[in-house]
């Protein structure tokens, strides 16, 4: 049996009922990795030895009849900007080339308590800044559906490894669409939770007021299983909500909901993409959902607001990388401190440098009111508009990406052109609302994702619609690799 094609609950059940051992399953996973990894380059670090050891330990635990966690044995890839104690965490940057964290991120602690297994660290755009994983020091991650094309980003490695069956689920991070974009491009399910639902302790900060760690899986069910383990308040993160210390989400269908198709999103998409989305609308209507086109005028400010806030926060978050306490090998003796800092930091990639400069620009003396404050006003406007819409609709939908996955190298020399692909996804980060991308179908043999957005902390509604759609649409899951 191809254990690498199983979903989370199937793995958990299979192990519980002794259909196969964890070691068997993990071994198959590593075989699969060996086979496809040279083609897609989704993983930065492999955790083979420890992964197999842990598998054996867990098998023993289960044989002895001891209690095991809800994700016992499940193979995860972890985006390489999430801290894993004892395992290199590079953020795909030279600046963290030899960095081994002294602590586990909260989400990792929770996965470990649930008895999950980490098979490796997933590739990303450097410091999560990008939409294609082309800005990685380790080379781009290729789309498993067409390896001449991008996998999306910045969590390209997470989505590609899941789509290519190198793992059963993954954790990525989403600042402006970084979980949903690659999920859409790779035909996977990717969720950005409500801001504050999942702890960011241990997530290397890019833009702290916008980002969340999110699960990636092949099905909505996978995403629900993982969310139930990682969600909930954390005393180590002041921005997590204290309302619900351990929320639980159910996997269920729900029909007859009110759905709003955002005009600005659908009209801004390529026709190949919008065709698939309109078909998705039909599918939803067949589920008794009432779909209407609705306008969200403030979308016109969304990208400008996003890039102002994200670059501003990034310019400050990346300041700590001066190579003094951690980083890469460069002897400080012989340097005067300003020169050392500047020389060490010249090892950031282009996109990272650009964002640091833009961020410093928008925060610089005299510009605070013009950019940063206005960007926050735009956030407010957008939020009020969407909250109003959520009085009339249960969810808002649209294409996750306005275009199909493009060729590697196509947009890399035009930063602004690259930024424009985020137009549909940044809205959810700016407002802190939850959003998910589910496979909607294919156009020109390339994946198209449907994005569903709900009001803050309305994850259950979001997941209900996603699941209902998924069950009705029945989109193929795995590429031929």
């Amino acid at each position: 049996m191809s254990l690498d094609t199983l979903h989370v609950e199937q793995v958990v059940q299979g192990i519980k009922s002794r259909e196969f051992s964890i070691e068997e399953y993990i071994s198959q996973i590593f075989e699969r990795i060996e086979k496809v990894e040279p083609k897609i380059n989704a993983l930065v670090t492999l955790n083979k030895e420890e992964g197999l050891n842990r598998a054996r330990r867990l098998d023993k635990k289960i044989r002895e009849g001891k209690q095991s966690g809800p994700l016992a044995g499940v193979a995860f890839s972890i985006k390489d900007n999430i801290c894993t104690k004892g395992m290199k965490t590079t953020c795909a940057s030279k600046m963290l080339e030899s960095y081994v964290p002294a602590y586990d991120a909260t989400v990792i602690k929770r996965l470990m308590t649930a008895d999950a297994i980490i098979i490796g660290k997933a590739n990303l755009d450097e410091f999560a800044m990008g939409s294609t994983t082309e800005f990685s020091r380790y080379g781009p991650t290729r789309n498993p559906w067409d390896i001449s094309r991008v996998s999306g980003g910045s969590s390209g490695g997470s989505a590609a490894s899941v789509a290519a069956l190198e793992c059963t689920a993954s954790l990525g991070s989403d600042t402006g669409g970084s979980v949903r974009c690659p999920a859409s491009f790779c035909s996977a399910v990717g969720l950005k939770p409500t801001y504050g639902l999942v702890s960011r302790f241990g997530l290397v900060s890019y833009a702290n007021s916008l980002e969340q760690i999110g699960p990636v899986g092949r099905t909505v069910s996978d995403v629900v299983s993982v969310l139930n383990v990682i969600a909930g308040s954390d005393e180590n993160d002041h921005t997590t909500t204290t309302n619900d210390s351990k929320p639980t989400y159910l996997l269920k269908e729900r029909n007859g909901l009110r759905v709003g198709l955002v005009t600005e999103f659908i009209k801004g998409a390529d026709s190949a993409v919008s065709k698939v989305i309109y078909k998705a609308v039909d599918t939803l209507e067949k589920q008794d959902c009432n779909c209407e086109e609705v306008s969200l005028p403030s979308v016109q400010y969304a990208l400008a607001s996003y890039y102002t806030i994200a670059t501003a926060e990034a310019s400050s978050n990346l300041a700590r990388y001066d190579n003094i306490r951690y980083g890469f090998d460069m002897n400080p003796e012989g340097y005067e401190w300003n020169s050392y800092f500047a020389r060490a930091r010249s090892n950031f990639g282009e996109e990272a440098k650009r964002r640091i400069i833009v961020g410093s620009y928008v925060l610089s003396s005299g510009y605070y009111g013009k950019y940063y404050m206005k960007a926050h006003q735009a956030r407010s406007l957008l939020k009020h508009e969407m909250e109003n819409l959520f009085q009339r609709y249960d969810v808002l939908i649209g294409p996750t990406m306005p275009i199909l996955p493009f060729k590697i190298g196509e947009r890399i020399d035009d930063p602004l052109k690259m930024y424009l692909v985020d137009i549909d996804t940044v809205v959810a980060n700016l407002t802190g609302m939850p959003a998910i991308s589910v496979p909607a179908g294919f156009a020109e043999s390339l994946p198209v994702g449907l994005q569903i957005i709900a009001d803050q902390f309305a994850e259950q509604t979001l997941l209900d619609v996603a699941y209902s759609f998924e069950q009705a649409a029945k989109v193929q899951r795995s590429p031929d690799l």
Partner: protein
Amino acid sequence: MTTIATKIGLEIHCQLTGVKSKLFCRCSSDYRGKAPNTNICPICAGLPGTLPLLNKKTVEFAAMISLALGCKLPDEIAFYRKNYFYPDLPKNFQLTQYNAYNITSIGVNGKLEYISSKDARIRRVQLEEDPGRLVYASGNMDTSVYVLIDYNRAGVPLVEIVTEPDFIDPKEVRMFLDKITSIIEHLEVCDTKLEGSVRCDANVSVDGGNKVEIKNISSFADVEKALRYEITRQRTMTSREIQVRSETRHWDDARKVTKESRTKEEEQDYRYFPEPDIPMVVLGSEFVSFIKQSMPELPDKRKERFMSDYGLSDHIAKVIIGNKELADFFESAIAVYLSPKEIANWIVTDLMSFIDERTKKEEEEEKEHSLFAGLKVGPEHIADLARLVDQNMINRATAKQILGQTVRTGEMPSALAKKMQANRIDDVSVLTQAVQSVFDMEQAAVQDARVNTNVANFLLGKVMKITKGKADPKIVLEMIQKKLKED
């Protein structure tokens, strides 16, 4: 001669040594004496992925300071990032507070009366974190080929107090700083005797000229010196019609001068913005009353209480509350034996002179430690002494003698008194005999005494001599006067 108007403003940094953990992490805030980089964690070392966790107690303490300085507390407070690079800054930004866009610091617009009818306005009070420490390998910045960095202090909580430029001479500044010290000590938020726990930067302008900032003053004691030097420097320049430049100067403690900072080629820009990882902290409507309730008694209130409850004079009360240790000593002593005026007197006169004597000896080393260090006297000793005097067991002269010994050896005054057999003779028969002997010996004086009452003291002296000072002078004098009338 035209008076040259001097304007001085202060920026005081006070470590909250009274809290147990750092401002944004759980590391101990007590870093002194620890081996380098042994008092750190991923948060204060600025490791990737870490988030600041605001210490509740620091907000309480900072609020107490704000209230004590008459400030207004906002309903919500926020933290800002001050972005700049420096090797002692683990994140290359400092978490602090900032009021340019909205009032978000813990206190604003306060006022403190530091001399009678002289107020200094407090612009703001804010919380911020201390950076790490740089040490130079060769002991000197200019000759070290590398710098050594210790992050133990990074993240220790500081309260910054900024005043308006309301001071017109260094003496006023000194008095203000004394008052601040007294308040901080009474609030128990900072132990000002610890090295580096309180620092003060100053800014000064002369005759409407440009303002000069003076940094790197390491103790309150040096502030006056630095200011005097700088004012002289500015006045000299003004008298020679040279314009004083607006700049930041460093106080060189070794040479006792202010020095120009090395010129920077570019202009710094801190790019302040609100810290996204710390939400706005809502203090709540009950907050101010909660703080007021749990705050230790402020020195001024304590002085008022000493005057009303214990009948101390304004002058004596002022001296006692001038130092919290002294005031605590006083209250402990009267708890043992309730004789406030007597005890206060002993403290303010004799005890203080012992303290001053010892302090003078140590001036060279400028060590700041407990007021009573080196003296073996505690509140129970003074209480005991006061009781002996009140009950007429010893006279004042003897009491002073005993105190001197107690301070050196720590022996209880009543034990010493017994040893010295200093208990007065109040046996009437013994005293009558003594008086009779003197009357017999000093017949001429006795005649004089019948006319001039003052001479009775001469006779008293003679009786004291015979009894070797052990007679109770009060009783003896009564006897002498009675006897004079009789014959």
